[in-house]
């Protein structure tokens, strides 16, 4: 199902959270809304879900070209997954998943045998078949979120909306679950919108990423596009660490730490290279973080792969030359 929203604004009292947002999502896409806290990403998701109403004068929220802005939350055909699971504490896993089916009007309600079949099918999908009689309190965080997802999928939603679904989980489980989500999406192909503040998560999982800042979408493109050709300084800064070099003529160069090449000699480093002293070396597994100190006491962060670091064989206090491999130039009127 395609989702299109036009000119959506939302404010709480005097503070505006969304400013004239437009977004068009293709059928079957997995899109993430990425942004720092307070950027309006969750609000946008809740407006699409129908939990929040957009301000007067906003444009429509369209599902498959039909305006649903006046349709109730329960009738939009959405599946919503909350950050803190929102599982029904007093119901078993089975009953949680069956809830949406049992809540259907009598005429559409499936028979008990069909409900059971459907729930078991979903339990297999989330690989928790043997947990059907447990209560949410007896599950781990990752298991809970999978149950929440199965519960949302039980009513066969036209769109799946996930609000920081892995935000409350620890790093290992997060990584595991987001790959699982991607595989799940590849099997069921339901249009999915995914809110996150984790760049890695957004880039790894989504077909397209909408980077949000202060109630606006700064860029909406494929992960590689967003990362390699950021639309502006905000997108660039938000997607990872960076070094900022001020040129003499006022231009600013943004360079990722891994886009800096370190050489032992000025000749091999090329004409643009600058001199610095190695002030710190930090190992973090596959990547080695090197901090360089320049004459003006400013610091430059560099990341090299462990094998490359081995070849360089740097020591603290050593003088080296460095040059950017790739750099992005943005006007500096942008401040986070």
């Amino acid at each position, binding site marked *: 199902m395609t989702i299109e929203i036009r000119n959506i604004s939302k404010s709480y009292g005097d503070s505006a959270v969304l400013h004239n947002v437009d977004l068009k999502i293709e059928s079957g896409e997995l899109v993430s809304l990425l942004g720092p806290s307070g950027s309006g990403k969750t609000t946008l998701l809740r407006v699409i879900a129908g939990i929040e109403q957009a301000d007067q004068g906003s444009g429509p929220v369209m599902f498959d070209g039909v305006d649903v802005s006046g349709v109730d939350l*329960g*009738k939009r055909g959405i599946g919503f997954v*909350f950050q803190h699971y*929102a599982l029904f504490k007093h119901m078993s896993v089975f009953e949680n998943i069956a809830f949406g089916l049992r809540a259907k009007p009598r005429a559409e309600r499936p028979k008990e045998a069909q409900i059971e079949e459907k729930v078991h099918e979903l339990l297999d999908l989330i690989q928790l078949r043997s947990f059907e009689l447990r209560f949410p309190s007896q599950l*781990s965080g990752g298991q809970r979120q999978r149950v929440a997802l199965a519960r949302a999928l*039980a009513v066969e939603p036209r769109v799946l909306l996930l609000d920081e679904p892995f935000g*409350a989980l620890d790093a290992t489980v997060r990584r595991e679950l987001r790959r699982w989500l991607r595989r799940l999406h590849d099997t069921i192909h339901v249009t999915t919108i995914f809110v996150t503040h984790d760049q890695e998560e957004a880039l790894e999982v989504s077909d397209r990423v909408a980077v949000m800042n202060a109630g606006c979408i700064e860029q909406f493109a494929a992960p590689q596009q967003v990362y390699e050709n950021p639309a502006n300084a905000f997108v660039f800064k938000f997607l990872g660490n960076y070094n900022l070099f001020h040129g003499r003529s006022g231009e600013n160069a943004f360079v990722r730490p891994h886009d800096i090449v370190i050489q032992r000699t000025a000749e091999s480093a090329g004409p643009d290279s600058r001199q610095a002293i190695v002030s710190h070396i930090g190992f973090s597994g596959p990547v080695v973080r090197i901090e360089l100190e320049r004459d003006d006491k400013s610091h430059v962060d560099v990341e090299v792969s462990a094998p490359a670091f081995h070849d360089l064989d740097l020591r603290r206090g050593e003088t080296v030359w460095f040059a950017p491999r790739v750099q992005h130039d943005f006007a500096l009127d942008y401040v986070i």
Partner: protein
Amino acid sequence: MSEVPIRQPAGRTAAARAVPQASPIVRRALIATAVLFLTIFIVVPLANVFTQAFSKGIEGYLAVFWPPQPPDGATLTFSQKRRFAEASAQAARTWSSIGMTAAVAAVVLPLNVVFGLAAAWATTKFNFRGRTLLTTLIDLPFSVSPVVAGLVFVLLLGRNGIFGDWATHLSWPDVFSLHWVGFADGAWPLAFSRRFTGVIFTPLAIVLASIFVTFPFVARSLTPLMESQGSDEELAALSLGASGWRTFFKITLPNVKWALLYGVILCTARAFGEFGAVSVVSGHVDSNDTMPLRIEKLWNEYNNQAAFTVASALALLAVATLVAKALVEWKSARDAERTEVGKS
């Protein structure tokens, strides 16, 4: 009470947050003070209530509720007859007060449950202008003297009150007079045989005053829980297509059931025991007496043993509420443990 061992981390510096370790003397002194206080102000008076109530033995105690009847066929002097009749009338009044107390509680409780749920829902799940004011108003009966509350109703609905004209002519049926009249007069076979006129100095005023003094209890016991639970579960249910009612009965209510029951118990205890507010609006009419009012009348009539007997019945009700309250607390703590969804 067993002591809880406090394990202190190794290398803890003196500047670190110290756990106050009272000396045994201080600890014993504090416990003794608390026990002494409870003994003087709770245990002794309560024991006295029962001692006085049983001062004429078990028969005397039971006679307050079931007065002795003259033996069949006995010839009685006039004064004997009078004494038997008087005892019967007193017992009837006592029973009427028990009935009134139960009836008032039966009306007040459901209203409080509905009001409490609505108020707690409104103040915790919505954000609106004047929310804080509403929360404060809910607490008002805690800080207002019940006598003042009673007077407010008299001044509003009494003969010279603001709504006095309307209220004094208001006619409403006595629900206990509902009886079968058959279908002769129409399709509806039930009718009331008695009606009340006016509000103040009738049971309706007792109900109003009781509602006033009891309404914070349910709302107050629900609010903190509903606040901490947020509305995600309700939103999840709604997003799955559940209706508002289904969401309420299947999700909200089970989540707050113990807090609700706790509030109901506190509310019952207060409804049973309220004196000041109902005293003002009862007009000291015998038929309006609740148990506390009845106790006062017996006391004023120098019928101490009977007064203490009814008081002991009320005290037993209080003990029963206390036990119920403890049970609910224990059950809800156990339930919370079982269904606690920790945030990992």
